[in-house]
């Protein structure tokens, strides 16, 4: 059973398009993080959200945490080829009792020039 569901699994778009990827769970997160991973490298943290309803912006990336802290979204405006990579959400799920992160299966984004 996957505790964190990410959608879509794969997305191929043209440069300049907008996109949104989603991260959903039936459990409540105490915090949630988004990472980007490029081939041959480890994931790199983009943002951490903690408060329900929180919105954070990082240049062309907008992250939103759901009011109930069970879901999150990442919106990219005017995507560029440099945005290509695997986007992973990860959260600390309150009812697992574990202090490590649970990762989603990722959304693989390809931005064509």
């Amino acid at each position, binding site marked *: 059973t996957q505790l*964190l569901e*990410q959608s879509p699994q794969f997305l191929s778009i043209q440069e300049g398009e907008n996109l949104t990827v989603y991260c959903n769970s039936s459990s409540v997160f*105490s*915090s949630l*993080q988004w990472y980007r991973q490029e081939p*041959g*490298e*480890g*994931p*790199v*943290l983009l943002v*951490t959200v*903690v408060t329900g309803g929180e919105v954070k912006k990082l240049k062309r990336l907008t992250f939103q945490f759901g009011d109930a802290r069970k879901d999150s979204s990442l919106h990219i405006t005017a995507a560029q080829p440099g945005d290509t990579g695997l986007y*992973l959400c*990860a959260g*600390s799920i309150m009812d697992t009792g*574990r*202090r*490590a*992160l*649970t*990762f*989603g*299966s*990722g959304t*693989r984004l390809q931005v064509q020039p």
Partner: protein
Amino acid sequence: GAGVSQSPSNKVTEKGKDVELRCDPISGHTALYWYRQRLGQGLEFLIYFQGNSAPDKSGLPSDRFSAERTGESVSTLTIQRTQQEDSAVYLCASSRGLAGVGYEQYFGPGTRLTVT
């Protein structure tokens, strides 16, 4: 600057052999994590160490997997009697505190393990 380093970067081994994977965390980071990432998949938690507390081994898939950490430094992940399903990238991460309470994890580049 010194980030998390892992060695070897690639390891090919025969089924049934034992392997050791090494992780050097960022100096001063008390928490260290091991994850497994199968091709095209997300990260699967294996084990974490936090300071002098007992490690959380709840993610280890079988008793063939074990890990040790010396103080707040190097960690070694050992896989005994490797199987083909162990083929994956093994990622190590470290953080100043527990990632589950919001500390940023810094990942190494991973060790790609192939079991033939």
